[in-house]
């Protein structure tokens, strides 16, 4: 094609506070073309779309490098509203619809047709009355363009999720100027049949000349729908290829295929002795990390890894079992049913949790290190307390607390002035060690560790992981580690379960190939060979 492309992005780069998230990304898109944008979490997809859409966060953090051309003209949007005017529509992952409004009202939101009324002269435009028949007609036309059946008069709150997604897309295409539509994980909430209808509808849209950028981690859909794919990894374009002739396996390896680091240090084959924790049909209502139906066993003495992309529910599992978010299903701990929704009970039963929310749940930021380390042990087991009057009055034993804290400061090498230093003053890595110490102080039989290396530097990462392995090997603590970083899981875990859309996608030994993990994470590998590991 010699024609000027609809969208051209050249040498796009972006740094957040000295942290490079995008480097030299080039992208061209023709009218009516559908581009599949794929990459792991943190690969830079979202940032790229934020730049395109003129999100204020980009400007606030120092703008971006490179140039964007829309229809051959250089553009630089100041706000999402400018981008909308420029003809770019965006359908977000979470719905931006008004629940009590009908399909029509939502499609026409803030672009309603109105009739003149004399009061306008006195009080301004907003006192015009709505022209509902015209609005309904217009909405019906937009729905028609999509080629789906959605009732224009139905309230959003009463319709199935799929129809909400269609409503949202209809709203974007209803703008006459829309030339480019960005869809961020539009099928994540849809059933398979709904997703199929959506794919068909998007194809129809593209045929009418609208270009589409489609972000999804369901690779089969990408192959079915897109004309070409762009694979991002660590902020760089790894591959740009036409979908024709490309296979899912190839895409998966492009996405996750970083050079595999050194293997596990001790490779002694560990045999599963007995299940210590049994999870049956667990569901957890944790916002953004919903767990729908998860069942697995954890063996005594193993390090069990849970991986998967962000927002798929892996964090919800630990938070649900520990009682921090509403949960249901059955959890059996050492042969006895564990009461859910009861954090104290879970701690008393001999479990401990190092939360992914280090500064919120993990630490009492304004309190000293010794308080932090002794806190759970004191609350749950009554340690570091002095009793008076036969236990009628109890108070803090500061000496015992200080010595307990000192023990862990030495053992974990926490860098601090003294055990009285406030937790907020420590670096991220040292804060994480305090969190670990707090969990160790309870003397748990089972330790949940969620995202233990998030936001800490490389050196500290290794120390934290070594500490976890040490505890497992020498104290016999069973560990369930949850992490977004596959390499990290593979380096210390025995078995790794991958969670996708709130369900277990599969379970693999840590020695399985990166490609297999990649396929599971992308929900594409539900073959018999991997399902064998799941109960």
């Amino acid at each position, binding site marked *: 094609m010699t024609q000027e492309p609809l969208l051209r992005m050249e040498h796009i780069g972006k740094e957040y506070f000295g942290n490079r998230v995008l480097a030299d990304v080039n992208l061209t898109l023709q009218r009516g073309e559908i581009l599949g944008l794929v990459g792991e979490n943190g690969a830079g997809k979202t940032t790229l779309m934020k730049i395109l859409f003129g999100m204020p966060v980009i400007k606030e953090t120092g703008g971006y490098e490179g140039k964007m051309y829309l229809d051959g003209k250089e553009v630089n949007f100041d706000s*999402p*509203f400018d981008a909308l005017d420029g003809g770019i529509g965006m359908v977000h992952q979470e719905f*931006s*619809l*008004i*629940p*009590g*409004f009908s399909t029509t*009202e939502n499609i026409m*939101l*803030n672009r*309603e047709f*109105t009739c003149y*009324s004399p009061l306008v002269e006195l009080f301004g*435009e*907003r*006192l*015009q*009355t*709505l022209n509902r028949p015209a609005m309904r007609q217009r909405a019906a036309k937009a729905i028609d363009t999509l080629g789906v059946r959605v009732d224009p008069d139905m309230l959003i709150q*009463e319709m199935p999720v799929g129809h909400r997604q269609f409503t949202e897309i209809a709203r974007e295409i209803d703008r006459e100027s829309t030339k480019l539509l960005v869809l961020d994980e539009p099928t994540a909430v849809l059933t398979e049949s709904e997703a199929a209808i959506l794919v068909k509808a998007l194809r129809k849209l593209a045929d009418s000349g609208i270009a589409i950028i489609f972000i999804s981690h369901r690779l089969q859909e990408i192959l079915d729908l897109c004309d070409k794919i762009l694979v991002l990894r660590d902020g760089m374009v790894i591959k740009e290829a036409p979908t024709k002739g490309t296979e899912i396996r190839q895409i998966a390896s492009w996405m996750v295929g970083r050079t595999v680091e050194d293997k596990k240090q001790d490779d002694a084959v560990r045999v599963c002795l007995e299940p210590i924790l049994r999870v*049956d*049909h667990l*569901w*957890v*209502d944790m916002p953004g990390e*919903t*767990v*729908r*139906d998860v069942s697995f066993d954890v063996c005594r003495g193993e390090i069990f890894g849970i991986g998967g992309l962000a927002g798929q529910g892996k964090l919800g599992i630990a938070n649900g079992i520990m009682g921090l978010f*509403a949960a*249901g*299903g*059955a959890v*059996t701990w050492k042969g006895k*049913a*564990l*009461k*859910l929704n009861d954090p104290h009970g879970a701690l008393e039963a001999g479990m401990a949790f190092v939360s992914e929310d280090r500064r919120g749940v993990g630490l009492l930021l304004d309190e000293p290190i010794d308080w932090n380390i002794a806190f759970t042990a004191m609350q749950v087991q009554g340690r570091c307390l002095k009793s008076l009057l036969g236990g009628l009055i109890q108070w803090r034993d500061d000496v015992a607390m200080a010595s307990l804290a000192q023990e862990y400061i030495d053992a974990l090498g926490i860098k601090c002035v003294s055990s009285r230093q406030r937790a907020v003053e420590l670096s991220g890595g040292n804060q994480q060690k305090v969190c670990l110490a707090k969990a160790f102080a309870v003397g748990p039989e089972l330790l949940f560790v969620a995202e233990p290396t998030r936001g800490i530097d490389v050196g500290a990462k290794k120390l934290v992981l070594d500490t976890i392995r040490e505890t497992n090997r020498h104290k016999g603590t069973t560990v369930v580690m949850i992490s977004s970083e596959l390499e990290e899981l593979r380096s210390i875990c025995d078995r790794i379960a991958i969670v996708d859309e*709130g*369900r277990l996608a599969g379970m693999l030994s840590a020695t399985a190939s990166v490609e297999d993990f990649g396929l599971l994470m992308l929900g594409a590998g539900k073959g018999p060979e991997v399902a064998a590991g799941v109960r």
Partner: protein
Amino acid sequence: MKNKSFKDILISNAVPIIFLVLSAAAIPLSGFTTSYLIQEMVTRMGRNCFLVLSLLIPIAAGMGLNFGMVLGAMGGQIAIILVTDWNIVGMQGLLLAAMISTPISLALGWLTGEILNRAKGREMVTSFMLGFFMNGVYQFIVLYGFGMVIPVENHAMLLSRGFGIRNAINLQGVRQVLDKFLMVDIGPIHVPMAAFIVIALFCLFILWFNRTKLGQDMRAVGQDMAVAKSAGIAVDRTRIIAIIISTVLAGYGQIIFLQNIGTMNTYNAHEQAGIFAIASLLIGGATVSRATITNVFVGVMLFHLMFVVSPMAGKTLMGQAQLGEYFRVFVSYGIIALALVLHALRRRMDKERERQSLRGGDAPAPANGH
């Protein structure tokens, strides 16, 4: 949605039904004649509906029950004090009072709106506290300003010390001006037709307003501020307009209320106006997030029916009318608390229902059983 079960209807109308049952039991005990009760209801509807209607718009805009209407009532009262002092009587006096109250309520409404925009999600308690604070300002103006800074000609209205307005003032000039303007007798019942026409106009205004772009924007803001904002609706401005409309209309409502009563309890009338209006609306079956014109009429009627019959019923039952008096206050505050609890319960039930859909299809039935 089409075929609501009988149980659903009962649950969603629990409050009005309880009141209907209570009233039905109390009416025979009170010994009032039917025509007396009808006359009372007609008079009281004419007196109160306007005030209660002024609450509807902020509810649609998602700002909950606007205790800020107390501020509007203050505006109406200051206007009526001035008009009484200037001795402007009849319809002119009433219209002038409305004209004076408009800018005062407008300013107070704008203030309330600005403050509530800084307290999103906590509008009710904030406006309640704001009412207490502005009560101090009002008292300062009325107790010290009048006669000191604002000249008062009519010395009968002043406290004996020479400044400050008396506790109770006689609104001779505007007493029942609106009611008597067009009094129609239907059988033995006197119907203040003019007041009802004003109320009908207000209802038409609300119906029309709901169909305007502004009304549509308010409903959008009320349901989801973030979505409305991302669609380009000026959220803060819309909310301020909602509160201003409510406050200004509450000022008119208070003027209509006072002309019917004919005397004014200078330092308490506005507070009672707020509490009684909100209680009436809730008794009519409204919730914190949803209220209709029907709720207003049903609520005002049930609330005042209770108001009228309970002292006499109390006297017959217990031998003392005070019990009924006590019952009124208890009911007003109790019903507000009850409505808030019901609202919270319903939200929790909705959340629980949403959770059902999270579970995998083959989840075991008991949550923790094994």
